[in-house]
């Protein structure tokens, strides 16, 4: 049914989506928290900037990232100076690009969820001796769980599906950067519809299961 290439691509995709989702949650949470709590003038501009990558076509973002991370780009110079080499066409490069592109899908739900937490439970926690970090983890995060679930779902799904950025920055190297989306795209481009359908079908079923599992973390509504 599947070529070895398909299986490699599936495993690679899983790895990418998982790494990116985890990193997005880790990196996005502090930013979303800041957005939700600050009274700073910068709040809205920053929130708008976070959503901004969305409006550019993925390939174009991919192009700019490619140039920026390339040997003459500002990011590329930094990574080379640090001895990390160049990011494009490597798995870490894919991760960085996906982070940037999927960021808004995680930040936005977290931002909304953190705002919905409100002051009272945080104030109550403070009076019980919980410091800012403590109450963040023991009150804000559990209460914002729906936002984490939504953010994880959107971030995960979008990282699986996005391929414009990935194609540009990854260059479709088997086992390294050729993810399922690229593989399916290739099958379609090669008029190899049977394999495209198969791979799409498997991807959909698998994603369905993952999404369903994520939804299981969604708390159910209280009665009063």
């Amino acid at each position, binding site marked *: 049914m599947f070529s070895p290439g398909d299986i490699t691509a599936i495993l690679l995709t899983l790895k990418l989506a998982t790494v990116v989702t985890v990193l997005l949650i880790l990196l996005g949470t502090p930013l979303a928290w800041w957005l939700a709590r600050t009274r700073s003038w910068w709040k809205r501009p920053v929130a708008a900037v976070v959503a901004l990558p969305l409006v550019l076509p993925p390939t174009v973002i991919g192009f700019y990232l490619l140039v920026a991370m390339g040997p003459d780009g500002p990011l590329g110079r930094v990574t080379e100076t640090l001895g990390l080499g160049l990011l494009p066409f490597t798995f870490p490069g894919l991760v960085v690009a996906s982070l940037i592109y999927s960021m808004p899908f995680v930040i936005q739900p977290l931002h909304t969820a953190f705002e919905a937490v409100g002051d*009272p*439970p945080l*104030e*109550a*926690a*403070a*009076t*019980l*001796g*919980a*410091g*800012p970090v*403590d*109450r963040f983890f*023991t*009150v804000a995060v*559990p*209460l914002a*769980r729906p936002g984490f679930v939504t953010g994880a779902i959107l971030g995960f799904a979008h990282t699986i599906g996005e391929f414009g950025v990935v194609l540009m920055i990854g260059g479709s190297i088997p086992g390294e950067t050729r993810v399922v989306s690229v593989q399916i795209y290739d099958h379609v481009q090669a008029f190899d519809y049977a394999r495209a359908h198969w791979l799409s079908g498997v991807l959909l079923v698998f994603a369905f299961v993952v999404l369903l599992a994520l939804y299981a973390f969604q*708390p159910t509504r*209280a*009665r*009063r």
Partner: protein
Amino acid sequence: MSTVPGDGLTVRLDLALLGFRLDVDLLLPGAGVTALFGPSGSGKTTCLRAIAGLEAGAAGQVRLGDRLWQDSARGFFVPVHRRPLGYVFQDAALFPHLSVRGNLDYGARRARGDGPALAFDAIVALLGLGPLLARRPSHLSGGERQRVGIARALLARPRLLLLDEPLASLDDARKREILPYLERLRDELAIPALYVSHSIDEVARLADHLVLLEHGAVVASGPLRATLARTDLPPAFLEHAGVVVEGHVVRQLQDDLLLLDIAGGQLLVPASGQAVGQVMRCRIATGDVSLAMAPARDTSIGNQLPVTVLQVVDASHPAMCLVQLDAGGTRLLAQVTRRAWKRLGLAPGASAWAQIKAVAGLG
């Protein structure tokens, strides 16, 4: 009870909210209960919040004993979670994502150690929370929520208790169960508490010190007995307040009564656990004092004291007046009809007998 500055709670705060300004300067005792009394919207909650450090906009000074919590002149501010306090919020403010047990543990686990330790099981039993421990707050009744809030604050081992109408949605029976416990806390733990309540009974019973707030300003502040004996306070307040007297238990009588030595005489009081020699506090409501020109016989009224009329002021109902009496050193306040006042020919300086129908022992 002490009012030495180094020992008490100093609260000097100025805070402007939408259409409201809180401006208070209070020196409160470092032990015992201070009642915060005042009409709806007078700033009681705001004052408690500011003391806790929850009102970022509050300027001024807060000091508990030798520990400075806040001094905005010097830009000094101890954040809420470093102030060892227990706060019972007016609306409970339980954590919706934790069970009742989770809520209680939250405070207990972070107990700051220097406050008195209270047994988890004892508090759970006292507040009747045993069967509820596994429940979510959304599955509790209003009064159950409030009880969890009280237990949670107590388990945090605070050095200052801030209680915002903790008993407001509890029935009398439950109140009567919890009140003695709060009294014991007050007496045994020697931590100060600020207690907001609309119930004069609760206040008279629990408080050592009384603060009257109105429109964000302090109308009166002082020791409970002295403040309750003032006749310049709003009549509605006086009527409901009554007076509080203190005396030593001299004898235990049969029928569960105690004989109490007070300035100017003796009182028979239903026992509430005191031993001979101990100090006991009682509240005498204005409505429970009647006046007679001679001692009565063959009556169920057990307490009659010779008194001198000091002054008379209006009560809130025009048919009534409030008569301040001196019973050989103990101040009493009687609410009688104007008709009786006239019929008995009373006037300041006159002698009479105060018949005291009921004396509530306050522990």
